[in-house]
Structure formats: C-alpha cells, structure tokens
C-alpha cells in the first residue's frame, strides 16, 4: 500500500518537543475546514470503496464462524475446547484478556491524552474509542460463555432469590463482572457523546429524508449553538475524568484474577501495572494497524499524517520498554523471593531449562515468541526510517499483537500446566473449536469496525477543525472562524 502514498509536505523535526510539533504542524498547512468535513463525512455518503468490501465480506463470514462455534460450545459443553486438568483455563481466558487489553487504547487516547491536552490524539481518538467498544464486546463473550453452565451465569449478579444465596464478593471474577460492565458502559457513552456534533454535521449534509431522520435522531437535535458547545465540552471533560481511572482499574481487576491466586507465575504483586501497560501497548498497536488500513482504503493520508504515526510509534516504543521491564522484574522477583516453586516456574517452564528428568517445558517457545515480539520488535522504532515506513509499522504492530496474545498465553497456560505437584502436570492442545472461536471474534470485531468506518464519522470532525493551522491563534485569520465554521455549515437555526 505504501507506494500509493503521497510524500508528506512537511519535514519531521525531531529536535522539537512533541507538544510543539503537535501545536504547530499536526495538519498539512493547506488543509481547509471544508476539506476536513468533506473527507470525513464524505465516506458515509459515497458508496464504499472496493477495499472496504474486500475486508468486509470475509469479516462477516468469520463472524458467522464465531456464532457457529458459540452455538456448538453451549449445546455440547466446554469439553469441545481443549481445556483439561490442570489447564482449566486456556484460550478462552487468554482471548478474554487479550481483547480487554486491546480495548484500552480507546479510553486512554480519548481520556488521558485529552486531559494532557495532546492535540495529536484528535486524528485517532474516534477510531480508538470505537475499537474499545467493539473489543470489549468481543472480550465479554469469553467470560460469559467459558462457564460450564452459561445459562446459570445470572448467579454472578446480586439478584434477590428464593435461595437466599448471594455471589461471593471476595472473588476476583466477581470484581471482573463489575469492572468490565462499567468499562463497557462508560466507553459507549463517552464514544456516543463525542459523536453527537459530527452526527449533526452528517445530518445536515445528507440529502434524502431517511438519512436525515436516522442521523438526526442520534444527533439529539444538535444545533451547534454556543450553549450546546459549552455543555458538550463540559460533558466531554467530565467523561474523560471518569474514564481515566477506569483505564487503570479494568485491567488491574483483570490482573487480580491471577494475582490473588496461589499459583506460581500468577501470584505476584506486579500484575496490575504490568497488565495495564501491556494493555495500552497492545491497544495502541491495533489502533495503528487498523489506522494504516483505513488510511489506505479511504485515502486519509492528510488527516492521519506521518507525524501522527511517528508519535504513536514512539509511544509504543515507550510502553514496550515498560512491558520489557515487567518481564525482567518477574524473573528478578522469582529469584529474590527465594520461593522454589516460583523459581522453578520461571527457569524451567518459561525459559525451558531441562528439569531433573531431562525434560523441557513443551512451551518455552511461547515465552520466546512473547519477548521477541513485545520487546524485540518495537526496538526498531529507534530508527527514523522505521517510524516513517508504513510497511514496517504495519508488520511491527501486527507482530506486537501476536506477542501480546502470547504474553497472556504464557501467563495463563504456562503457569497452570505445571504447578505444585509434578504428578498433576499436564499439557494443553487446542481444538478446532478453540481456533474457530478466536478467529471468529476477530471477524466479529472487524465486522463491527468496518460498519463503523462506513456509516459513522471515523474522525472527530469538529475536533480536527480545532487543530487546523487555520484554527491556531497565531494564524492570521480571525480566530473566531474555526468555532463559527462548524456552526456555519449547519442548517439555518431552526424555527422557534
């Protein structure tokens, strides 16, 4: 896809700190307000490009596969997976944690970066938020249906009942239920609130009544008045404030599922920060992967410039180092704690040193895959060429997501397949249903995502306008213009 790229007009000046870059040339200088509107809103008005269909059709088929696998799973039993004793959790929870992790970038970018006034986020936040919602949906499937008797999942909710039995609030799984649900709710609302002004824009551009009605309905009668903007900005700020702690809490709680247990490899205090960084890391990677695709398919090179990508790669480089630190720290703690079981786990199961019977852990390759993908691969972003080469970024981000999946696999399966009593050791083999379900969720995710980019403004139009060179105070134009601009495009103020 790289060959189709127009050469960026502005040089990247690495000597300048990020903020300045962000403030000064985030957007091509010749980018006009109406161009932004046409670019973004236009996608929802023109027929979908071939590239979209090429992605959409297989995605839908995979989604179908997912539903088939789920139906089979529920009707036949959890045994259609490869899970066994001692590996009672395998791909199911691995996928859950992986998806939840991916769901992190959204809130992080829209909330935290927003609070830190990172203007460059405006080109990617809408995207990331949508991704978050869809990823969390995919994630939720696993805890809901990995249970032996899913039709009894309602036992997990505190509902008054004729048995006088309540859920066990000591159980991390219980916390999970609440954490994930909260996160999903907030993410959806946050996303939707952000969408409102842009929905209004599309409503006003649309020609046939049905479109007007549909978009209009969801635009909640947005007219772009100053009061609207005032409320909007305040609401957005509040939501950002609410979801910021969530970014940290959700994956911390997920990590408690393991940290609070007694199993070597699970029972460790480093997990909450470790999981959150990992999550952000993988989330960013996937945002970038999709971004690169969409950018090519819809020709959004002027909205998402190489500078955005450059900043994101740097961000990933940083998080990758954090993750790497966590990996190293795990080993240090295993040694420092003097706990022989912990020690044994890391030195034999993870690295795969031969045990007393000369056997090696059948899984050491998993650990290698995780380290090389998550710590090794991102190092390439030290080099400018990598930060500017789309193919490199694309491959790297894909590898990172593979690596992050392996991280979860290593933590979950490797830890339990050999724990305290060697007599109970076992090994896990995935079945076709395991694989089908995993692929299926990807299809499901892509389907939702592609529908989103096709029918909703994939960039925050209004916010983008806010960072146009034209909108910058130092710019010669009347600095009211950018604020008037969107309103200017609205229909004449409605009667009464």
């Amino acid at each position, binding site marked *: 896809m790289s060959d189709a790229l127009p050469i960026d007009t502005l040089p990247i000046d690495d000597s300048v700190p990020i903020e300045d870059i962000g403030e000064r040339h985030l957007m091509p200088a010749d980018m006009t307000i109406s161009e932004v509107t046409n670019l973004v809103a236009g996608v929802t008005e023109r027929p979908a490009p071939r590239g979209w269909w090429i992605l959409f059709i297989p995605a839908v088929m995979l989604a179908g596969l997912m539903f088939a696998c789920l139906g089979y799973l529920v009707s036949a039993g959890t045994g259609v997976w490869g899970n066994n004793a001692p590996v009672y959790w395998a791909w199911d929870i691995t996928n859950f944690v992986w998806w939840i992790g991916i769901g992190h970038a959204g809130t992080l970018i829209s909330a935290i970066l927003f609070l830190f006034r990172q203007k460059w986020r405006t080109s990617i936040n809408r995207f990331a938020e949508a991704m978050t919602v869809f990823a969390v949906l995919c994630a939720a499937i696993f805890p809901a249906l990995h249970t032996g008797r899913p039709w009894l999942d309602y036992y997990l909710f505190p509902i008054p009942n004729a048995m006088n039995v309540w859920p066990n609030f000591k*159980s991390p799984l219980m916390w999970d239920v609440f954490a994930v649900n909260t996160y999903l709710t907030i993410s959806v609302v946050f996303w939707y609130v952000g969408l409102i002004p842009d929905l209004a824009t599309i409503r006003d551009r649309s020609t046939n009544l049905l479109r007007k009605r549909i978009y209009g309905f969801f635009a909640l009668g947005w007219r772009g008045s100053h009061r609207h903007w005032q409320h909007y900005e305040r609401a957005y700020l509040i939501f950002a404030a609410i979801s910021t702690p969530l970014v940290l809490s959700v994956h911390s709680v997920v990590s408690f599922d393991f940290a609070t247990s007694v199993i070597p490899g699970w029972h460790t205090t480093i997990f909450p920060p470790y999981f959150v960084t990992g999550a952000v890391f993988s989330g960013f990677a996937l945002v970038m992967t999709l971004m690169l695709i969409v950018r090519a398919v819809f020709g959004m090179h002027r909205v998402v410039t190489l500078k955005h990508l450059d900043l994101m790669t740097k961000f990933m480089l940083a998080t990758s180092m954090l993750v790497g630190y966590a990996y190293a720290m795990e080993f240090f703690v295993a040694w420092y704690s003097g706990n022989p079981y912990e020690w044994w786990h890391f030195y034999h199961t993870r690295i795969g040193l031969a045990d007393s019977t000369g056997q090696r852990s059948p899984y050491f390759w998993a650990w290698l895959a995780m380290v090389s993908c998550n710590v090794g691969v991102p190092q390439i972003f030290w080099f400018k060429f990598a930060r500017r080469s789309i193919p490199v970024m694309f491959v790297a981000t894909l590898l990172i997501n593979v690596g992050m999946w392996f991280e979860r696999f290593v933590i979950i399966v490797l830890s339990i397949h050999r724990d305290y009593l060697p007599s109970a050791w076992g090994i896990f083999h995935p079945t076709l249903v395991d694989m089908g379900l995993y692929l299926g969720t990807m299809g499901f995710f892509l389907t939702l995502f592609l529908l989103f980019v096709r029918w909703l403004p994939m960039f925050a139009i209004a916010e983008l306008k806010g960072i146009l060179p034209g909108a910058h105070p130092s710019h010669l134009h009347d600095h009211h213009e950018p604020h008037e601009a969107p309103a200017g495009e609205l229909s004449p103020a409605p009667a009464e």
Partner: protein
Amino acid sequence: MNDHEKTLPEPRVWRSLDELHSDGPRDMRTDHEKTPGALLETHSLLGRRGFIQYTGATAAALGMSACIRRPVEQIMPYSRAPEYQVPGVPLHYATAVSHRGDAIGVLATQHDGRPTKLEGNPDHTGSRGALGLLQQQAIWDLYDPDRARVPAHREGDSLLDSSFEAFDEAFGALIATHAANAGRGLRVLTRGTTSPSFMRLREAAKARLPQLRFHTWDSVNEANVLAGAHLAYGQQLGTVVDYGASRVVLAIDSDFLGTEPGALRAARAFGPTRAIERPDQEMSRLYVVESTFSVTGGAADHRLRLAPSQIEGYLRALARTLQSKGGFDLGAIAPAIIAAPLDAFSAHSAWLNTVADDLLAHRGTAPVVLGSGHAPALHALVHAINVALGNVGRSVKYFAPVDAAATDPVADLKALVADIGSGAVQTVIVLGANPVYDAPADVDVRAAFGHEGLTLVHLSSHREETSELATWHVPEAHFLETWGDHRAIDGTVSPQQPLVAPLWGGRAPIELLARLAGEANWRSHYVVQQTFRSRFPAPGSFGREWRRTLHRGVVAGTGGVPVQPPLIQAPAIATALAQAGETAAEGIELVFLPDSRLFDGRYANNIWALELPDPMTKIVWDNAALMSPATAARLSVRNNDVMRVSVGDASIEIPAFVLPGHADDTFTLHLGWGRPSAGRYGAGKGFDLRPLRSSAHMHHVAGATVAKAGRTYNVVHTQEHGSMEGRPLALDATLEAWRADPRFAQFRSVDPTEGPLWQRQDYSTGHQWGMTIDLGSCTGCNACVIACQAENNIPVVGKAEVARGRQMSWMRIDRYFVGDENDPRVALSPVACQQCEEAPCENVCPVTATSHSPEGLNDMAYNRCVGTRYCANNCPYKVRRFNYLSWHEYLDGDPELIGGVPTLTPTYGNMPETRKMQYNPNVTVRMRGVMEKCSYCVQRIEAAKIATRRDDRDMRDGDIVTACQQTCPTGAISFGDLNDPRSNVARKVRLDRGYHLLAELGVHPRTTFLARIRNANPAMGTPAAAASEEAEG
C-alpha cells in the same frame, strides 16, 4: 441441549431453566425412583428383594400437560410392603466371593433393592474388613449392560436367543442321555473352586455318572504353589504366610501385596508391621527380588532386579549361602544345591550373605516367599528353607487344602483337548472358564471345541470367545444374584448370599452341577442349604444357625486352625531340583503376569477397571510391553513404539513402555487384554498375549526376539511426570534417620508461622473432621480409588479424554521415582481433596458454590456451580475434577471415543438403565459443566450425624468410615473427629511422622500424611537413603 434431551426417554419435565438444561440423572432420588418403573416388565423374573419394590416416589412425568407451576409427579407406594424394607434406608448383607483359591468376606449395601456398594466384612478371618480392588469393582459387573440375558442355542453358524425353559429342557435331555451311558463322553470344564457345595456336587455327579470326568482351567492359577507343597510334604497343603508375625520377609518374584494368591490377607497383616508409631518400635523389613516392578517391589526396603531366568539361580545360591552359614541345614537337599553357582551374583554378594544373615538372625519370623509362577521344585525348596529357618508354625502356616481334588489346569486342559481330538468326548460343559481366549498357544481349544459332533454347553456371564463355539450358552448369574459358599484357604467357610434375584435370570455353576448330580431341587438356595445342613447337625437348630451364619457371613468355629505338616521330603525335593533348571537363552525374556485390574481378562468389560491407572505405570485402557530404560535404550525404542515380539514363530505386536526399575532385557506383559468379545466397552482394548504363552511357559519365557514394527500406538497414562523435582511431597526416611531426627517430616514441609490476613474460623469446638494417610503402609494398590468411584458416582471418560487429561477420579495415587532411573525407589502419596482450612478454591468462586463448613469440610454445592473452573486453577493439589462434557452418557455415544480416537464432536448416547442402577442415591450425579471433588464422603458423615441425633447419642469414633478408609487393605487411612481426643485420627495426627502436603502454602490441609519409614539394613550398603533426602539434591 438437543443431545441432552435425546438422552431422556420420557418427556422432559422442568420447573427451571437450570433443570431443563440439565442432562441425565441429577438427583439420584428422582432417578433411582424411576428405575422400578423402567423395570416393571421384568416383574416375573425378580424375587423378594427384586426391583419391583416401588420405592418412595416414582417420578412419572405427565409432561407439560401439567399446570405451569409444577410437574405432576406420582407416588407409587407398595401394595404389600416387603419385610425388612424401610423405603430410603439402605440394608447391608454379608456375603462372600472367592479369588485365587481364597475366600473374601463382603458386606454388600443395598438401596431399595439395588446393590450399590461392596465393602469388606470385618468378621471374616481372611480379609478382616478389607476389600481388594477386584472385589470393589465387581459391583459394576452386576450392572454390565453386556451381560448375557437369555440362553442362546446354536443354529448353523450363529447363536440364536433362546429361553431358559428351552435350555432347561435341552439340558435335561442331555443329562438323561449321559445318565443312560454312565456319563461316558461327558466332560465338565470348570474353574478352580473354593465352594464346598461345588465339591460336594462334583463328587455326587461322579458317583452318579462314573465315567464323567472333570477338568479345571484357569489361565492364572496356583497349581505350582500346590504342587510345590505336595512335593515338599508328600500331601496336599495350603500355605499361608503370616506377615503379621514376620520381622524379615524375602519375597522372590512374588507380588504378595498385589496379584498373588491371598494378597488381601497378606496386605491386611503386613500393613500394621510397617506403620509403626514410635521410632523405638519394631518394624518389619522387606527384601524383594523380582523381574518386573510390582507394588510389592514398591513397598520393599531393599529391592533387587533380576531377569526371571536368574530367579532360580538366585534361590539356589541363597540356599547354598544359608547352608554354608552355621545352624542351618537343608539336610538331604544340601547336595543338590551345593552345586549352585554363586559367581552369577558376585555383583550382589550382599543379596546373598547379608540377606542370609538377616534371615538367620530372625529365625521363625523370617519367611521366604516365592512367586506362584515358578516351578514346583523351587517352591519345595522354599518350603525346605522355611522349615530350616524354623518359620513353620510361626510365620508360615499350613492348612488343609481348600480343594483336595485340585489338579494341574494345564495338564487337565491338554488332556481334555486330546480326548476331544480322539473322539472320546461327545459333550463338554464349560462352567465359567473361557479357554478359547486364554488357553496356551499350543493347546488348540478352538479347534477342539469346534470338533465335529461335539455338544458344548457354556456357562458364562457374557457371550464371549468360548461361547461363540457353544451349542448352548447359558448366562451365569453374578455372585450377588445367586447362592453359594466359599472356603477360605485357612478353612473359614462363608455363605455367598444374593442381594437381588438375577436381573435377567441366570444360573450358578452349582445349579448345573446339581442337575448333573441328579438333585431334584437344583436351585442354588436349596443346594447350599443342603451343604450347610451337614455342618449344623443338631436337629432343629438349622434355621437358627443358618440365619446366624448369614448374619455374620462366616460359619462360626470354622477355619484358623493350622495343621502340623509332616516331615519335609528332602530326597524328593533334591531329585526334583536336580531335574529342574532354567536354561537361560539369548534375547529378551518375557514375564506374563495377571493384570492388576482385569486379572485374567474376566473384568475386561468393566469400565472402572479399564480406566483405573496401573499402580506402577499409570497406564489406562491398555497394556504394553514394560521394560527398563537401559533395555529401551539398547533396543532404541521409546514409549509408544510398537514392537513385534516373537517367541519361536509366534509373534504379537505391542507398544513399548519404559518403566524405571524394571529388570534389564526383560519385558513384563500383562494378561487379560485384547479380548475380541469382551463387550461394548472392553472389546479389543489392549493387546492379546495368547500367541506367546505356551503350556510350557505360562509365567515366563526366554529367548524372545524383538523388532520395531515401524509404527506407533498411543499408550495413555495419567501421570506425565515421575519426579518430585526435589519438592517435599511424598516424604520418607530410613529408620536410622528417623531415630536420629524424629520430626524430620515437619522440617521438610513447614507450616507458616504467620496466619492469614483475615480472622481465622474457630475450629476448636464441635466435630472437626480430619484424615491421616500412612505412606508407610500404603502400597498403592488402587482399592481406595475404585471404592471412591463406586461410592461417589464418579464417571468414566474413555481413553481419548484421559489422553486429554480429563480423568475424573477424586482420589489419585501419585507415584514418584527416586534415585537412579534404572534402579529407583518408589514414593507414593494418595492425593484427594485436602479439605484446606484456608482453602484457595473457596475465595475465588464467584458464586460461593464451594465454601467451608463449620466442621472443617470444604463443601461443594454442585447445583450452585456454574463452572468457571477458577477453583480448580487455584487448587495447589489439583484434586478438583471438572465435567467438561456429560461424562455419564459419554461412553455410550461414539464408541470410537472409548477406543481413544480423538474427535471434534462429542456424542452422547443413551446410558443403559442398568448402569444407573449402581448409583449411590445419597450422592448427586453431577451434570456437565459442574466441578466436583472428594468430600470426605460427606454423605456418610451426615448420615452418621442424623443417626446419632435420631438415637440421642454422641458420635463415637468409627461411626463414620469413608469409602477409601473402609476398603484399604493395609489400613493406611484413618478418618475421624480431630476434636475427639480419644479418636484414632487425633492420635495419628500428633505422630511425629505426620506432615501436611505443601504446608508451606499456609492452606492448613485437614489431611495429614504420615511419612514413610524405610527399614533399610545398613549392612546392605547401597539403598534406602530416604527418597526425599535424595530428592533435595
């Protein structure tokens, strides 16, 4: 859920989604109450204790026609209530079963007419309350859906179902014709028997039909033992070693704790001598010389691996060494063994001199025992040695033979086949035996039974290999269905009392015999009573005596009285020894041993047996060629490599399996597998050894050649990893080490000094249940595992699922090898739920399906479980089992699954009603998606508590006996109230050998292990530096 619906024949009735989705039997009360209805049509076949006893309520579903609020259920009370029967209250009956020429006392539990569980009868002198693995699993055979149900008659090439009436008529006619010619051409082929009635009728039949001849056949038999005693003393004698009175035991190729005759009796006596409580107590010492690696070898203090062909040499050399020492004289035998070469054992000089010294130092209490597979001459030599050691009358006792007319089965079978060949035989009646499957390769029974014009009547539980040649096949009744009697090897006589009328009809061997003998009333009940009348001569007293006998399960005053053996026949032994003599040959030596679970193949369709791990290899659903690592390396084969093993021109293909500690250049092959007609579950499982086993070499054969077949076969076993990795798990120490450091166990496995962060529950009051498992006396025989399976409705999952690591047994016996991989020692630890006081599983369950009881039990509420499996992940002992699929119906789905072919689509079949009938109604049958685990037999605990409350009394120690504890042959398991200072378990918990598995985790388990003590002989030099000590290295 569709496949679950099709598992239920009647319309589903449901009151909640939970129930609608749930499959198969849930609450056994509703389920077993169904069965009488299901069996109504068999009304006429079933007797007083039959199944037509309508128990409590019959869940007769009237379908959705019922109002939405609830299903209409019906209650079917008796019209006339049967005597003794209180609906819902189980009854227990004393009965007996025989195994390898010995009788075992059984207490059978019966729920509303269904026998559900077998336990040992404490009043029986032989088993003394214990029950072995084979007897425990026998209850399943009663409900085996593949049992023959009606007689079959041959039409052309096929067996067609007939009726009992038709058979009785035909059989009557058959006897009549032979009665006319005094029984000429009539032969009866039976198994070895312990039944006085059987013997009485046999004599009666001979008297009536003078030319009638009896033959016996057992592919695993005690002929050599009997012949040895006969050779040694010139008369029939039963030999019993009293291990309880033994200080030093030398077992030569004898698995006397496992598969040898009288193993249960031996284990019962031997166990206590290993489970000493204080360092200053006397402890027995066990030397084992063997070719395979048996549970006895695992229990040994010192163990020597020898190829079977060297065993004789060793025995002679030992005799010579003994002879050379002072105060030991073999008399006339001496010359015969003076020639014995010692140089072959120069490497093991300690095994001659030191062992001899030890034996001599413990005269009278130092029995030498030899495996039943070895030649009579050697047995005679062993008798002589025991005499010279002064053991006779003290640790070795002799009794009158159980069956004075017992013959050598091999010769007997050969004779029969020869006679058939010569046309001298018109009719053969086979009672129980299955020679077509298990006869030696050189005795062509198949051809003989196919002989033109031969009438073959076969009595057996299944239509099996022999039946296929039969003119008539008659279903044999299970021992719980028919009357009988057994004489134990020590003379104790026990009645065999049925708990239920034959499910589908069926005959006992003695019933056919009775007809041969011309008894007018041939029903087993009458026949046995007749036998007993002679025992209770007092006129009129019979009724009372009879009832008392049935109640106790043994005839008062019988047995236990040894006979004084005559002088040893030294010259005869000497000549026999001179003639005998192993000829060691090149190549691999093969040892044929009965399988610990299938024995000689008679349990081949028993799913419990099939899925029970072999005590040493942990192999399930198969047998394999076991060999030492060195041999495997030399042959460059690995596990699962299929090999072609040939003896002469006969050969079989069988996969290899490496067993550390096995003798080099020797394969152990287990009998009883590869039966083509075993039944739907067992048919074709494992590998048939018949071609390799000739009448001359029934136990072992030398000179086998081995070639790789170039393919592999997946042998599934349940324990992937055999090393403790230096962890303090199955602790042990030598006696010296223990005396030096009495509390070594606690120091290896330390309870944390700091408590948990939260307030600990107070366990100081009320009952606090606890268990101790003595690793010193545990032999890993697996009896507890099957007892648990029978008691707790534990499903079987099939080979494919075991391969996936989904076996369900609540109790597993961990087997670790310690030390040199070619000559390791074995450390065992039976692990079930430890009932942790700070249970990791409880905190993580999101729905409180598992929580702690005030009595310290880790309760599991199956109906609350949603199946997140978090508890199992967080269990450090990995003792929780998950119903990944609907296991109970699973085996009856795709038969491939049993065979081990992995498949993507689990299929559920209709579970035979009969298998449901075995279920314990007091334990929920878990549906798929539910976690389960050992509950310390909570149903028994609650039953006992209810009983005490009902009778207004306090709980006594021993009121509660868990299933595993009850059956344990060595009494290694104790259970009771830790807060009761007088209780057995409270005392044992305080023993300084006691330790908690993984105590360092601070979970405070309720199960306490007592570290094993190895009574190593310092003079032996090498072994028994304790396993755990080495493991640390």
